[in-house]
C-alpha cells in the first residue's frame, strides 16, 4: 500500500528568550497508508498539533523529511494542498461571518464549485443553521463547521486534530460513522485524539507519540498484541497451593503478583508453559485466562501517564523513549 503520509526524523525546537528551548518534536517518525483511518495518539503537549502544523507548512521544522501523497513537503505543498483537507487545533473562524459565507469564501479561494458548500453543510449537520453568524455557534457546532471546511475540497487525505472536542455523544457517534464512510469511499483519515475508546473503535492503525517521539505504531490489534505483555490470570483448585505456585513460577522467571484467590502473571510467552511448570509440582490449574488489554492501558503504559494515587502528574512527565530511566509499572497495570 502506498504511503499517503510519511514523516522521518522530524524535529522542531521552540526557542523562547525567557524559557530557553523546548524540543517539541525530537526525531519523530510516522507513516500512514492509503485508505486507512489512522489514530494519532499522545498525551497533552506531546507534539501532535506541532506535527500536523509542520506537515501543513504552518511552521518550519528544524530537521527531518515529510511527504504527503508522495510529494515532499513543504516544497510541494502548493501542489498537494488541494488534496489535503485539515483542521488544526481548535477551530477558528472570523466570528461575524455566517457558516455559509465562511465556507463560500474558502471555496472561492480554493476554486471549489459553490454547490459543494451545501453538500458539506448537509454532511456535518449544519444545514439549517448555516445562515447564522459563527459567533453564535457552540463549540461543537464550530467543530462541525471546521470539519465541513476540511471536507470542502473533497480531499484524498483528511487530517483532523482532536475533532471530537466539544461534540456531544450523538455528535461523536455521527463523526465516527462519517469517518468510516469517508474511509470506505477511499479517503485516508488521520485523527489525532486522546479519547482512546473512540480511536480503538474506528481506527485501523495508530501512532502513539510521547514527548515528541514515536513510542508505538502499527495496526491496532498488533499494537495491542505487542503490548499485552503476556498478562495471564490463573486460579488453582486449592487456594492453599498459591504460595507454592508463586515460588515455582518466580523461579522460572515469571513475574507474579499474588491475590487472595488468584495470581496475576506477567511476561508469559506461552500459557501452556505455565500449566506444564505447575503440573510438574502437582499443582492443577482450574482457570488460565490471558488478559485482554485495551488501547487505553497500552497508551497509559507506553506514555507512562497513568495516574498514581497521591501524585499530580505534570504535563511533560511522560514517557521518553531512548531517555534515561524506564518508568515503573503503571498503577493498576500489568507491569512492563
Amino acid at each position, binding site marked *: 500500500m502506498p504511503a499517503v503520509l510519511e514523516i522521518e526524523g522530524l524535529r522542531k525546537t521552540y526557542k523562547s528568550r525567557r524559557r530557553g528551548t523546548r524540543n517539541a518534536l525530537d526525531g519523530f517518525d510516522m507513516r500512514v497508508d492509503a485508505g486507512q483511518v489512522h489514530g494519532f495518539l499522545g498525551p497533552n503537549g506531546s507534539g501532535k498539533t506541532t506535527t500536523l*502544523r509542520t506537515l*501543513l*507548512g*504552518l*511552521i*518550519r521544522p528544524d530537521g527531518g523529511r515529510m511527504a504527503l501523497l508522495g510529494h515532499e513537503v*513543504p516544497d510541494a*505543498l*502548493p501542489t498537494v*494542498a*488541494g488534496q*489535503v483537507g*485539515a483542521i*488544526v487545533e481548535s*477551530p*477558528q*473562524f*472570523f*466570528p*461575524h*461571518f455566517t457558516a455559509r*459565507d465562511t465556507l463560500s*469564501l*474558502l471555496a*472561492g*479561494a*480554493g*476554486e471549489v464549485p459553490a454547490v459543494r458548500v451545501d453538500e458539506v453543510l448537509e454532511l456535518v449537520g449544519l444545514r439549517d443553521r448555516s445562515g447564522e453568524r459563527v459567533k453564535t455557534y457552540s463549540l461543537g457546532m464550530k467543530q462541525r463547521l471546521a470539519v465541513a*471546511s476540511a471536507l470542502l*475540497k473533497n480531499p484524498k487525505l483528511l487530517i483532523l486534530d482532536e475533532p471530537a472536542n466539544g461534540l456531544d455523544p450523538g455528535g461523536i457517534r455521527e463523526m465516527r460513522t462519517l469517518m468510516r464512510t469517508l474511509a470506505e469511499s477511499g479517503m485516508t483519515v488521520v485523527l489525532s485524539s486522546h479519547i482512546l475508546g473512540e480511536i480503538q473503535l474506528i481506527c485501523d492503525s495508530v501512532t502513539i507519540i510521547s514527548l515528541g517521539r514515536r513510542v508505538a505504531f502499527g495496526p491496532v490489534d498488533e499494537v495491542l498484541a505487542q503490548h499485552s505483555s503476556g498478562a495471564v490470570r490463573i486460579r488453582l483448585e486449592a487456594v492453599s497451593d498459591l504460595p507454592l505456585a508463586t515460588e515455582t513460577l518466580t523461579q522460572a522467571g515469571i513475574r507474579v503478583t499474588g491475590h487472595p484467590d488468584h495470581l496475576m502473571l506477567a511476561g508469559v510467552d506461552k500459557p501452556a508453559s505455565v500449566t506444564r511448570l505447575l503440573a510438574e509440582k502437582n499443582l492443577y490449574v482450574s482457570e488460565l485466562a490471558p488478559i485482554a488489554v485495551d488501547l487505553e492501558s497500552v497508551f497509559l503504559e507506553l506514555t507512562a501517564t497513568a495516574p498514581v494515587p497521591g501524585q499530580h502528574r505534570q504535563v511533560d512527565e511522560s514517557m521518553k523513549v531512548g531517555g534515561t530511566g524506564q518508568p515503573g509499572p503503571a498503577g493498576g497495570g500489568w507491569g512492563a
Partner: protein
Amino acid sequence: MSLFRTELRRLSKRRFTRYMTLLGLLVLAAVVVGVFFTNQKIDAGQLAQAERQADQQYQEQVRWSEQERAACEQAKTAGTATDGRYPDDCSMITAPSRDQIEASWFLPSTFDFKETFAETLIPFAAILALVGFVIGASFVGAEWSTGGMMNLLLWRPKRLTVLLTKLAALLTGILAVTLPAAVLWFAGFWAVANFRGSTEKMTSGVWQSFLLTGVRGVVLVLVLTTIGFALASLGRHTAMALGGVVAVMVVGQFGLGILLSMASVRFAEAWLLPTYALAWMTKTVTLQDWNSCNATYYGECKPATMDITWQQSSILLSVGVVVVLGAALWAMRRRDIS
C-alpha cells in the same frame, strides 16, 4: 484570480469596512454641505458696499494717525515724559496707504473655485487616508487574530502570494471608493462655486493642476492604506496597528515637536510627518525661522526660509512603504503560524 475575487468579496462583506466607508463618505459630504452654507455669492451691490466700507476704514486710519502725530509733537515740545508711547521721530506715525486696505475684508465669505478648490483636496485626502488606514489594518489584522489567515493558508500555501493578493484586493476596494468620491468631490465643489461663489478664470492649466493634486491625494490614500495593512500584518492585530500609529502620532510627533522647539532647533516642522503629507499635497511647504533675520535692501527683516517639496515627500513616502511592507512580507515568509 479566484483568490483576488474572493478577497474582494471578503473585504466588502465585512461590516467594519462598510461602516468605516460610510462614515468617511458622510464626513466628506458634511464638509461640502458646510462649505455650501458658509459661503455666498457676491453681487455688484455688495461689492460697492465693501468698497465704501474700505474707504471708510481708510479715512478713519488717516484721522487717527494724524491725531496721534499731533499728540506726539505736542508731547515733544512740552517735554513731558511719554514712557515710550511715541517714537522719537513723530513723522514715523503714518496712515496705511489706501491699497493696503482690501475691499474683500468687508465681503462675506465666497467660494472661488480657482482660488480655493485645491485646498479642499487636503481634507479630502486626509479623511480617506485615515479611512483606508483603519480598514486596511482591520482587514488583515482581524484575519490574523481570528485564525482566518491560518485557514486560508491551508488552502493556499504560498504565503507571499496570499498576503500580496489580499493587499491588491484591499487597494482595489479603496480605489473603488476613492475615485468616485473624488469625482463627486470635484462636482460638489463645482456646484458650491456655482451657487455660492464663482467658477471664473478656470483655464485648462488650472484644471490640470487640480487634477494632479487630486491624483496625489489618491496616491496618499493608497500609501496610508498600505502602511496600515502592513503594520497590522506585522503585529497580527488591528489594535496593534492603530495603537502603533497613535503612539507615533501623539508621542512621537507631539513630543518631538515640543522637544525640538525647546531646543530651539531651526525649522522644527521639518521633522514632523504631517508637514511632508502637506507638502505632498501642496507641492511645497515653506518653513520660516523667526529667530533669524535676513536684512533686505529696504531695511526690512525677512525670516530665513526652508522649502519642503513634494519630491522630498515622495521619497519619504516611498521609503516608508518599502520598509513597512518589506518587513511585513519578510515576517510573513519567515514566521511560524499558530
